[in-house]
């Protein structure tokens, strides 16, 4: 979850500790603020706006001055930033670990691929809404029952769903089976760069507006932090959770569709591979769970590392192992993500203190709080 939350948890040692996990209703919102603490106020606002505009200008003019290699990289970063964002919605904001997001990605990819086959011949942009609808329906059907499960149960259930989707596409005829599907060759790389960038940007704006600037966001966080209390406030928790799940499902569907058209050939190994979920998890964890911009940062870093790794070592399997090591290290040493390093120096100090303290945690009775996230 957010760094702010854990800071507060650490501050509140003693009997209040258990409550600390549940009382911070607006943690993600406050985190965004505290993470950018030096830049708040009217002047900070200008700086931030300037930064955002500079970023937008660089992003939009990239094809004018950059090389095709970097455009391809930037497209990949946009894709993964969007995917990581969608995972952050369900995990960071709603508090449910989903290991099945690759399923939605694959659904989007296959929808676009099947509809663009010569015997259907749909135009590309018409296929994206279909992918959205299918992913949303699928998310409701699977999420309605699965979201009643907690923690690990939900994680495994979504994992099973994604595996079932993959098994199905491998077995079924009209998905091309293990051989996969070939799409028509699309326009140039600039086209895909812009489409991907715009899709990711829309996803970010949508999620930011919905989760940080609306009542819906407060509802989602309230349900995450204390579901019974949220229900007592009159929030329809099941509905809110399903809404969040659908929101986090349609984004990968759209990006999956664009990705399919971009890479022009898909099969279960490429768009329904578990490594995609692995990457999402590590990107969000590295970037910072529940931070608004953490996933984008994590995605950019990880994707660049990935590309660099592949071009210098040429082995994607040792990359998987490295991803595993990164996840372990981040969980052990930087539970709030890399974003937390520069936010405030106090935070890093607390992380260091935590490391020294963790050993005698149990004796101080901390095991009592161990059921908190279930």
């Amino acid at each position, binding site marked *: *979850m957010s760094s702010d*939350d*854990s800071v507060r*948890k650490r501050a509140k040692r003693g009997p209040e*500790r258990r409550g600390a*996990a549940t009382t911070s209703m607006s943690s993600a919102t406050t985190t965004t603020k505290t993470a950018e603490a030096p830049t708040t106020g009217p002047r900070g606002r200008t700086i931030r706006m300037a930064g955002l505009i500079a970023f937008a200008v660089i992003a939009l003019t990239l094809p004018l001055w950059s090389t095709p290699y970097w455009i391809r990289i930037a497209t990949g970063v946009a894709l993964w930033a969007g995917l990581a964002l969608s995972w952050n919605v369900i*995990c960071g904001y709603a*508090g449910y*670990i989903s290991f099945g997001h690759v399923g939605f990605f694959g659904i989007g990819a296959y929808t676009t691929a099947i509809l663009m086959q010569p015997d259907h011949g749909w135009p590309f942009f018409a296929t994206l809404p279909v992918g959205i609808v299918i992913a949303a329906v699928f998310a409701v059907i699977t999420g309605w*029952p*699965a979201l*009643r*499960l*907690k*923690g*690990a*149960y939900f*994680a*495994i*259930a979504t*994992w*099973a*769903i994604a*595996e*079932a989707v993959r*098994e*199905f596409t491998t*077995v079924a005829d009209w998905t091309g089976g293990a051989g996969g599907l070939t799409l028509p060759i699309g326009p140039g790389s600039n086209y895909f760069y812009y489409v991907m960038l715009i899709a990711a940007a829309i996803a970010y704006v949508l999620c930011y507006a919905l989760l940080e600037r609306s009542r819906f966001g407060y509802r989602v966080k309230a349900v995450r932090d204390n579901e019974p209390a949220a229900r007592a406030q009159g929030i329809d928790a099941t509905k809110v959770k399903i809404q969040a799940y659908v929101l986090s499902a349609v984004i990968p569907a759209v990006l999956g569709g664009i990705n399919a058209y971009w890479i022009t050939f898909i099969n279960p190994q490429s768009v329904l591979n578990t490594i995609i979920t*692995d990457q999402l*998890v*590590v990107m969000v*964890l590295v970037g910072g*769970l529940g931070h608004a911009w953490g996933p984008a940062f994590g995605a950019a870093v990880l994707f660049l590392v990935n590309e660099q790794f592949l071009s210098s070592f040429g*082995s994607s*399997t*040792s*990359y*998987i*192992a490295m*991803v*595993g*090591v990164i*996840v*372990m290290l981040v*969980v*052990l040493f930087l*539970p709030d993500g890399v974003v937390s390093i520069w936010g405030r120096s106090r935070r890093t100090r607390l992380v260091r203190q*935590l490391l020294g303290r*963790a050993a005698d945690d*149990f004796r101080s*009775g*901390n*095991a*009592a*709080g*161990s*059921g*908190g*996230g*279930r």
Partner: protein
Amino acid sequence: MEGLAQALVTGILIGGLYVAISVGFSLAFGVLDVVDLAVGMWVVLGAYAGVKAHDWFGVDPFIFLPVTFVVFGLFGWLLGPLIYRVRTSRYALPALMGLAFTFGVATLIRGGMLTVFGYTPRTVQTDIVSGSWSLFGIVMPAIRVVGFLFAVIAVAAFLFFLYFTRTGLAVRAVAQNKESAGLMGVDVKRISSLVYAIYTGLTAMAGMLMGAVYSMTPELGLRYTLFAFFVVVLAGLGSVLGVLVAGLFLGILQALTTTYVGADYTLMTVFVVLFVILLVLPQGVSKFAKAVRT
């Protein structure tokens, strides 16, 4: 009819191995409060230990079983405290972080194995038995029968430890209530490490047996994770009897699907049944989660 009996026998023989995989997993879940997503990776790693024991030293994997237990137990002994630390840390959502941590372990093992061993399927070679026995027209491959027997012995030894030793008593106490167990003078951290060590050792042994029956690739780890989870969900926590029944049920389900629907659909059937079980028994499942917590 013949086919049904055959499927049942095959299913029970495989089910014994599923029990051996799941029984330690179930206990580790109860004691550490973490679903170890790496369980299937220990299975595959154990199988590869058997393959390599034969390749490198020419030792028969079945003789190698105790060594496997000790070696993987040591791995678990080293890893257990880390998981314990994540689980009892002051992170915002320790349960989520624990899950993410074991996910990292699973990813590391999978990537490492793919790098070292590649994608080629391997089978554990053994010289102890070969061929198959036939009883009332039901064919029983000898290797499966022996694997089943070894699994039964391992599970029996495990249960003996759990129910007839003082340490086993401490383990059960921790699984029931960490705080009270701690107050009674049980070193919860040490017990957690011990349970994790026993669990990894047992699972790796079961994996070696599994590798003698089915060929293994590093990619199969996920499947065994789901199978172990299936068994634990179906069984309900704290119920050893439940694990026995659920493991055998999974084996039979798999065998029946293979016989009557087709081997391609085995996994999908298991996933769908798992999903349905999670849906119809949310009460049972949550009760079981509560049992862990208190």
